[in-house]
């Protein structure tokens, strides 16, 4: 095995190559700028593959319009490869670099894409509603099994993370609140603040965010992968509706599961607060519970629990729609899953703001 070598013979106009000509041989080519190669000489070439052949031919004939050089002293099998490559060498005109888009163009495109998302979501809600109305009088055709599987993954599987998160948030919140309250000797009012914050805001929003990240992403990835493997098409050709089979069980499961998870979050958050109240503020567990019973209003609990199904509908709709709009490649699954989480989070924050303003106006 001798390394590839090539030199240019000015007198003959010949490029003389020798050694092993593979893809790695590119560096052995001399600078041929402005020189016309009339002869390609392969006297010393011991090995040649198509990559090596292309390199030699491309060096001798940089433009397709240049004449084909005379091939000299190549071994017969190398000659065959050179001819095969020469036949299939086609000059594809250099692709123009993609035009860079300006700020206005990007903004315009982004706005149009957002508008498209919104219209698509409305269309999807409409179709889903029709499907639901058609299904309602026929409980026999409900996908109970799929529904049960979804409840178990969405609800049961999420309990540890929801309880753990809210417990820690309860600890942090009670600690900060307690620090302030103690300065005024108002230790016991920590319970009031904690109750209000956890039940009304923290638990619904945090649980919805967790579910959007955990379940929403999973739904999009699963449905998206089913789209890639043509399972959705198979469902359609079997005379079934993908909306009834896949989407409705997930939406209903999420609408049921999210309030339950919020309730678990409420309890975990208060438990975390109770622990801190005892350690930091000397409020015993029984004092905490007494105060809790005094100040708790059913309204406070229901406001938090009532927000949950609304969040759930939006998370499930966004996740299912993004899953169904996956195109047939792997990157699309990733992009749509990301989009699901982002859209869900934005929806949760906006909905929560709307709720807050509405409740204040209605004096709830």
């Amino acid at each position, binding site marked *: 095995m001798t390394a590839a070598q090539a030199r240019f013979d000015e007198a003959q106009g010949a490029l003389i190559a020798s050694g092993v000509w593979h893809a*790695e041989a*590119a560096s052995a080519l001399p600078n041929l700028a402005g020189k016309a190669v009339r002869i390609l000489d392969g006297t010393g070439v011991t090995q040649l593959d198509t990559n090596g052949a292309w390199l030699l031919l491309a060096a001798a004939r940089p433009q397709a319009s240049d004449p084909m050089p005379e091939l000299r002293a190549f071994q017969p099998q190398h000659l065959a490869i050179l001819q095969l490559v020469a036949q299939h060498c086609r000059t594809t005109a250099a692709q123009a670099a993609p035009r860079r888009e300006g700020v206005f163009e990007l903004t315009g495109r982004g706005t149009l894409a957002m508008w498209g998302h919104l219209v698509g979501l409305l269309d999807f809600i409409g179709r889903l509603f029709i499907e639901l109305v058609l299904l309602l009088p026929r409980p026999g055709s409900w996908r109970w099994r799929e529904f049960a599987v979804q409840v178990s993954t969405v609800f049961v599987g999420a309990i540890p993370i929801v309880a753990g998160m809210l417990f820690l948030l309860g600890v942090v919140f009670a600690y900060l609140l307690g620090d302030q309250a103690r300065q005024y000797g108002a230790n016991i009012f920590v319970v009031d603040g904690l109750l209000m914050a956890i039940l009304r805001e923290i638990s619904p929003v945090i649980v919805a965010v967790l579910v959007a990240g955990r379940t929403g992403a999973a739904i999009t990835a699963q449905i998206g992968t089913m789209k890639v493997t043509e399972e959705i098409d198979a469902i359609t050709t079997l005379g079934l509706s993908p909306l009834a089979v896949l989407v409705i069980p997930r939406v209903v499961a999420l609408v049921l599961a999210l309030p339950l998870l919020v309730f678990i979050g409420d309890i975990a958050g208060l438990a975390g607060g109770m622990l801190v109240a005892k350690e930091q503020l000397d409020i015993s567990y029984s004092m905490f519970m007494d105060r809790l019973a005094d100040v708790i209003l059913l309204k406070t609990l229901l406001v938090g629990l009532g927000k949950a199904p609304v969040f759930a509908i939006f998370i499930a709709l966004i996740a299912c729609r993004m899953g169904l709009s996956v195109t*047939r490649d792997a990157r699309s699954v990733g992009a749509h899953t990301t989009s699901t989480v982002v859209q869900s989070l934005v929806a949760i924050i906006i909905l929560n703001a709307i709720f807050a303003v509405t409740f204040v106006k209605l004096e709830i």
Partner: protein
Amino acid sequence: MAEPVIDVRDVSTTLGGHSIHHNLNLSVERGEVVALIGGSGTGKSVLLREIIGLLKPQAGRIELFGQSVWDSTPEQMNGLRQRFGVLFQDGALFSSLTVEDNVATPLFEHTDLPHATCRQLARLKLALAGLPADAAKKRPSELSGGMRKRVALARALALDPELLFLDEPTSGLDPISARAFDTLIRLLADSLGLTVFLVTHDLDTLFSIIDRVIVLSNGHVLGSGTVAELKHIDDPWLAEYFAARASEGETVHGN
């Protein structure tokens, strides 16, 4: 040629409690176009995965170019991998890359060539595989099944391997595309001096482009030879296999 390109010695495989191969032996010489056939579940694909280093057999020794597949260091194995190309059954193209970048990927990774040169070489490989020039900038999802196979073949050829593995190269193709693909493989094998090892169910492939057939049955090699030689082996599965063809009038092209 002293040493075989592929050498499988006493390979035994057990998957999920089922014995797939016991003491299986086969070898392939340089420049041969060899087909592996056998009924469903006889472990053809498993054997292929073992030879290309994706699945470790329980016992035995597999050598490519005289170098052991399963006793090599990762560096040696990577060197070995550049000497063979694999065409997977469904193409296994990278769906997020264009056709051209799919073929150029091995060149990007394993050579020091500038990317522009890699892409030009990729276009040469696409042309060799019989794809039109406008396919280069498309995504795999925009191509038909036959074209995807051709792209996959172009990618398998990117580094100019000496050995080509094909897993059911003509499955899912219409008869005309399948024959064209067969002809292409034979043409490339002859003009580039490739050794080709393919797993197939396609009788037409066997009759048209294959030098030697290896039959897998009950965990070992039942026989090997040209199609004509195999017909003398007394085996119910083989008899039925060739009967399917004989009934429609034999047209042996041979080589």
